[in-house]
């Protein structure tokens, strides 16, 4: 088979609305700007202190020396805080019209009406729209933006904020801790099962605008929640930075599933720290799909802290022209009888690069623990690249750990079969790619799965047969 030039189609959601920001800090980051953000948000002293402490850590930390090239990020040439509207609204009718138009194009209202319990939509840095179905509210479920949570639930915030991912963790977690804005806060009381996924859409709209949302999810004993986060961003020529922090606490016997479909436009640096603490008999699951962005570095991790805790990471990466997806997952076995599974599927086309970077660590004393890592990579042409960097550390005898990886191209026999049935080469290729990622797609809520399949088809269009 000769090489297939597969051209990634222009970005589907690459439109943007005129900015209508109300309050905007000047470009760059320093003590005054961090204080101005905190002052504008009218935050308590401890949060201001936390931000300033994090700023010092950010300034002291060096950039990561591994992974993608981040030299294109200019911290001084970025806006760190923009608030698009001063009003917070609860009903859809009150949402400003141009913002509503934007959401219309990505289909939020339909999604909400169909089967979502609540929608927190983030426009620039603030969550402007919130609607949580009454039945969950009555059970004590809290689903709000993190800024509101800081005002309304200061005790919970103070107890958990920055405990799962401290600012010392890495440079971008420190940056987020200093300038964070927006994000979701979810609290599920003991024994409550939130059976319909909670959903939030994020967008970057102001040019050169870094988005630093901060999400905190607490699932009390025996509870269950599924949180869905999706990102689409308009195209801009200057590079944008998205450095989010997601902290999740899964208490005894609880289960949290966190689904992300990241589809930032091809100029965004997406550097996100995501971590779950899973206590006794708890279950933590990450489903992480990376389709867009220029550079993504993201390794959702599970810290299995209690006996019998379970963690699962499903990672999907798709890299087209000029894209580098450095994704993966981490599992830390810190207690006996803990189990983890990491499954990674990656597709590289048109010179794109995907890397699986993973870590499994089994602490001494974590008897009876089991871990299995499986990574599969599909390389569609000879311009693209695929890497696997798995680290497996075992300090305990009574452990079962397995890791498997394979790298392949589209099989000629598969292609021949489909084409003999009348499909074009592009159709056949996209069918094979969709089949390859199917094990992960089937875990994603329906409307995302549909969008994902469409995106893959779109990316495969223009391939010459």
């Amino acid at each position, binding site marked *: 088979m000769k090489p297939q030039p597969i051209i990634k189609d222009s970005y589907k959601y690459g439109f943007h609305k005129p900015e209508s920001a109300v309050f905007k800090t000047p470009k760059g980051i320093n003590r005054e700007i961090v204080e101005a953000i905190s002052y504008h948000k009218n935050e308590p002293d401890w949060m201001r202190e936390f931000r300033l402490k994090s700023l010092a850590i950010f300034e002291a930390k060096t950039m990561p020396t591994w992974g993608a090239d981040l030299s294109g990020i200019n911290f001084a040439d970025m806006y760190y805080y923009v608030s698009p509207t001063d009003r917070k609204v609860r009903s859809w009718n009150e949402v400003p019209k141009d913002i509503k138009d934007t959401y219309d194009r990505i289909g939020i209202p339909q999604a909400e009406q169909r089967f979502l319990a609540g929608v927190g939509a983030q426009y620039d840095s603030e969550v402007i729209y919130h609607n949580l179905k009454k039945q969950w509210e009555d059970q004590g479920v809290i689903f709000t933006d993190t800024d509101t949570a800081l005002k309304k639930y200061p005790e919970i915030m103070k107890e958990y904020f920055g405990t799962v991912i401290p600012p010392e963790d890495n440079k971008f977690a420190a940056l987020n801790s200093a300038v964070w804005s927006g994000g979701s806060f979810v609290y599920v009381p003991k024994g409550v099962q939130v059976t319909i996924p909670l959903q939030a859409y994020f967008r970057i709209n102001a040019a050169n605008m870094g988005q630093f949302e901060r999400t905190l999810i607490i699932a009390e004993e025996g509870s269950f929640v599924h949180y869905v986060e999706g990102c689409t961003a308009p195209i801009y020529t200057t590079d944008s930075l998205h450095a989010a922090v997601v902290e999740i606490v899964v208490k005894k016997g609880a289960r949290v599933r966190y689904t992300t479909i990241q589809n930032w436009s091809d100029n965004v640096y997406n550097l996100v720290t995501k971590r779950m603490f899973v206590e006794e008999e708890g279950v933590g699951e990450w489903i992480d799909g990376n389709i867009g962005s220029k550079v993504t570095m993201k390794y959702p991790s599970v810290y299995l802290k209690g006996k019998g805790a379970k963690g699962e990471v499903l990672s999907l990466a798709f890299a087209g022209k000029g894209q580098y997806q450095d994704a993966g997952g981490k599992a830390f076995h810190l207690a006996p009888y803990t189990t983890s599974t990491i499954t990674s599927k990656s597709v590289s086309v048109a010179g794109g690069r995907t890397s699986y970077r993973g870590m499994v660590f089994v602490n001494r004393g974590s008897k009876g623990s089991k871990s299995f890592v499986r990574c599969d990579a599909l390389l569609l042409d000879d311009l693209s690249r695929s890497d*696997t*960097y798995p680290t*497996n*550390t*075992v300090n305990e*005898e009574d452990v079962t750990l397995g890791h498997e*990886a*394979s*790298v392949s*191209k589209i099989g000629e026999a598969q292609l021949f079969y489909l084409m003999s049935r009348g499909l074009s080469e592009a159709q056949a290729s996209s069918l094979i790619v969709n089949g390859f990622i199917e094990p992960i797609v089937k875990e994603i809520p329906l409307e995302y799965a549909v969008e994902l399949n469409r995106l893959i088809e779109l990316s495969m269009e223009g391939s010459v047969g």
Partner: protein
Amino acid sequence: MKNVIIKENETLVLPILWTGEESEISYEVLLSGQGASVAILGLLLGKDDAALQIKINVTHAAKNTKSEVILKGALTDAAKVNFEGLVKINHGATGTNAWLAAHLLLLSDKSKGRAIPSLEILENDIKAGHATTVGRINDIEMFYLMSRGLSREQAKQFVVQGFLASILEKFPREFQQKAKKNVRLS
């Protein structure tokens, strides 16, 4: 660091037997000519507080090259093995076939194993894979052997020998004798 360059249509089998003497083993292999092939077979036996850093880098720089890196280790007492492997397939090295595997058997609660088998692939017309397992002795195998009247120690011997047999068979003959003696001792 030992540098090895393998030229067109050359085949090299590189057996490694570690019984605790060296603390570092490191190979840099370049498959520079078409049809070059390498097999690196490592048998690692660690006891007491023996610790090994083993690093194996293989670069496929030509078409139709083949590499096979297989490590099998059995660690008792407080022995430690840290394996870092990297197989790189350059752009243009079509028809390449690469396999990278590390299997560590931990026989005591103080033994430690770390394995980082990495792949960097810049060509799509290739076959590449890797596998790692780290774990303890299989209870079912132990139970079977002990139910036939073997002591725990004897059964353990058998299971370890069985685990290592697959790599021993691939060793060159003169090396096999030496290796087998060591396996029995462990």
